[in-house]
């Protein structure tokens, strides 16, 4: 017999629920929570989900295991009082500039205060005045609005395994902050924005570029182009009463035209182009024997993750720019001559489900002649704001259609918005057939499949969430698994679950959005990128062949090692003379194990005995990437691989003689 327990006089069967809160929700009672997310570990800090368990008193439901025959009360005078006090205490140290807060109307604290009917606050207000961190291009941190629920900290470390932010200090001084209390842009953040997605208040929000876009639209000299990412079209409608996953692309196009955009194109066009370029690159890697596996490079948070934490895999990233950056570069090369305008008059605004795309647009590789290829990136949320600001009745709009040719796409380009979509699109190219690869679809964990191509088995893996990606990379490093192509999207579920999308609180909306994209693909005429006639035409008129020199200059990029983002070099022996030689010894894990410390000791002794101390400065540094060739030592600008004392001394003496 199934064990049961009693919740507010209802008898509820226990069927493997992880905690009491899940069971209570099953009984159709929505307990308030700040710190509980089903995808994260249980934290039990906010104490809002307290319930009364007979014989045990008040317990937080999220951190209590359901047991047979428990008698649970979710509403008593005592509980109501406690919840009220908790919220009042939070409000007492919360910056209450609600009317001007970007999170207003979406804020869980505001919502809760309303629901609990809090009319006055009995506690003395203790507003903080910490500086607001606007250092990054993607996110804004306002510590004055933080309720210390730790959702951001946990999603950053558990789901993304980045750990860019954490709690610091203690007691009433506790705060969430990046390392050393520095700006977000100085740390290890990859700007996926999942922290902003789970933040119940306005403590971490998306950095808005709405005002800048209005400025462009108002400027008569600018010819403003918008392009819409696939995932946006199945989520934006949620803000106007549509179901998650319901296609509203026609209305979005119509709204963009009303807002004053000169052309409205589809990012899925350059997604098609990405499929062709990336598949061509992949096939050539297969033929030339590597480097494999090839990683997809559409997701800028993933790209940054590799550059920062696994630069040894930089060469595995496809050299293809993301569809957003392909679009910017292509549009700015094609359109000015078509409309007889200067390149600098043409402005590209991309509508993205993503916060990392904002940072990507600022990368120096994507700046041509002093102008960004993508001028501004606005998220789904920001476009919703613009539509509301303009007073457009979104639901009543007549469907518009994309401008041609950059608005034409195949279904392959559309499914990019869901985790597994890029792989499926590439597979359709490689086998040159429209097949549904159901194995790579879905949300959870690792998905894999293999196909035969010219007598060779091609093994594919798909993951979303950077923690999953890290696990996979570690297994690849240990040679436990072998794959040829790996698709990674930083956000769970892919772009549909991006941080720029309307805030969602349950998993089902993510699933519905994915379903919406696949349905869209099904109803389309073409399903393979290579069938897109306008893409074919683009190759004939401009790009020559996939992977051509021209294609490379416009559509491909390079990556760099960003491992040494945090922390300065450590000076371990200073020089007193002005004309000094700088010797930097790598103390990354590999070099450490290969004897960097012994080398440093020997060098220090050598300098001491030969009285060279005052001419030579020794520094310890973090990882120079080429770990296989350690220990690495840099003398001035010269890097010595597999360094030995002999090598170091001969180089040093050579410099000192000069």
């Amino acid at each position: 017999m199934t064990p049961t327990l009693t919740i507010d006089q209802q008898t509820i069967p226990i069927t493997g629920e992880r905690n009491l809160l899940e069971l209570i929700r099953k009984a159709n009672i929505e307990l308030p929570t700040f710190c509980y997310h089903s995808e994260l570990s249980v934290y039990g800090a906010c104490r809002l989900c307290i319930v009364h368990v007979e014989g045990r008193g008040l317990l937080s439901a999220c951190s209590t295991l359901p047991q047979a025959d428990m008698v649970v009360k979710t509403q008593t005078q005592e509980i109501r009082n406690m919840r009220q006090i908790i919220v009042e205490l939070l409000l007492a140290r919360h910056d209450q500039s609600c009317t001007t807060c970007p999170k207003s109307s979406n804020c869980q604290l505001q919502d809760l205060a309303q629901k609990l009917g809090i009319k006055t606050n009995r506690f003395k207000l203790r507003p903080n005045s910490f500086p607001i961190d606007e250092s990054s291009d993607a996110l804004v941190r306002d510590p004055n609005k933080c309720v210390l629920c730790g959702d951001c900290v946990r999603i950053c470390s558990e789901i993304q395994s980045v750990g860019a932010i954490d709690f610091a200090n203690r007691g009433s001084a506790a705060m969430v902050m990046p390392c050393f209390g520095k700006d977000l842009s100085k740390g290890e953040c990859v700007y996926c924005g999942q922290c902003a997605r789970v933040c119940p208040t306005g403590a971490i929000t998306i950095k808005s570029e709405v005002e800048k876009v209005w400025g462009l639209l108002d400027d008569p000299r600018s010819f403003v182009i918008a392009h819409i990412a696939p995932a946006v079209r199945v989520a934006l409608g949620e803000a106007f009463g549509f179901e998650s996953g319901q296609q509203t692309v026609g209305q979005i196009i119509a709204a963009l035209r009303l807002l004053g955009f000169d052309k409205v194109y589809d990012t899925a066009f350059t997604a098609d182009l990405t499929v062709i370029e990336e598949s061509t690159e992949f096939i050539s890697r297969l033929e030339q024997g590597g480097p494999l596996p090839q990683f997809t490079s559409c997701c800028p948070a993933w790209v940054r993750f590799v550059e920062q934490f696994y630069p040894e895999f930089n060469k595995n990233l496809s050299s293809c720019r993301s569809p957003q950056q392909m679009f910017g570069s292509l549009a700015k090369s094609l359109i000015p001559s078509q409309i007889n305008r200067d390149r600098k008059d043409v402005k590209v605004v991309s509508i993205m489900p993503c916060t990392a795309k904002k940072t990507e647009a600022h990368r120096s590789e994507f700046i041509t002649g002093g102008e960004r290829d993508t001028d501004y990136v606005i998220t789904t949320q920001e476009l919703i704001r613009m539509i509301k600001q303009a007073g457009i009745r979104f639901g009543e709009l007549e469907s518009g259609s994309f401008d041609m040719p950059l608005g034409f796409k195949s279904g392959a380009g559309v499914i990019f918005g869901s985790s597994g979509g890029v792989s499926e699109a590439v597979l359709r190219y490689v086998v040159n057939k429209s097949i549904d690869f159901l194995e790579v679809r879905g949300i959870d964990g690792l998905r894999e499949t293999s196909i035969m191509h010219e007598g060779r088995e091609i093994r594919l893996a798909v993951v979303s969430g950077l923690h999953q990606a890290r696990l996979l990379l570690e297994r690849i490093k240990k040679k436990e698994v072998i794959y040829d192509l790996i698709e990674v999207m930083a956000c769970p579920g892919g772009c549909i679950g991006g941080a720029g999308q309307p805030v969602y609180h349950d998993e089902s909306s993510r699933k519905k959005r994915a379903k919406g994209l696949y349905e869209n693909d099904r109803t389309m005429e073409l399903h393979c990128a290579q069938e897109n006639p306008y893409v074919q035409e683009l190759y004939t008129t401009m790009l020559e062949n996939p992977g051509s020199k021209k294609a490379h200059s416009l559509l491909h990029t390079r990556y760099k090692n960003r491992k040494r983002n945090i922390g300065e070099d450590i000076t371990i022996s200073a020089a007193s003379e002005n004309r000094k030689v700088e010797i930097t010894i790598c103390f990354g894990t590999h070099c450490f194990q290969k004897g960097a410390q012994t080398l440093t000791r020997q060098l220090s002794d050598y300098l001491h005995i030969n009285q060279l101390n005052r001419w030579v400065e020794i520094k310890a540094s973090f990882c120079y990437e080429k770990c296989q060739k350690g220990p690495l030592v840099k003398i001035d600008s010269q890097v010595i691989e597999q360094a030995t004392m002999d090598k170091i001394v001969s180089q040093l003496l050579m410099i000192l003689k000069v």
Partner: protein
Amino acid sequence: MKKSAFRKFDKVCDILALHKLNPARLIPILQAVQEEYRYLPEEIIAFIASSLHVPAAKVYGVATFYSHFTLKPKGKYVFKVCDGTACHVKRSMGILDAIREKLKLKEGESTTLDLLFTVETVSCLGACGIAPVLVVNEDVHGQMTPEKTVILIDHILQKEATHE
């Protein structure tokens, strides 16, 4: 003699190796490193974090959580004035004032510019029987008075002067 930067860094490497680069040993590692430097310098925290493959923000969180750790350089002599209930009643604050005056510490300062002295208060050292208590580094001084404290500081200053 001042330990050279090299010797200290070399010791950090030894400490990390001793604990087998095990992230679960973070607190003992930080304790041992703080012994060396008398505080936790930022670049060393970053180095420890990268060596242990733990996010630097997490190590910073641990280092700021425990009052034992300090991110600012402390003096060679750390004066801990007990301000637990018993010591407080026995006028421990007078001792604190005397030290601060003697060392010419301005408001908000706790370490002298020459990095010789640091003054802090602690809540109960468990030696209430000999209140008020002052601890200098590891040495416990019971039944202190402002006068005795000033003499103690003079002794230290003399010792330091002859050493140099």
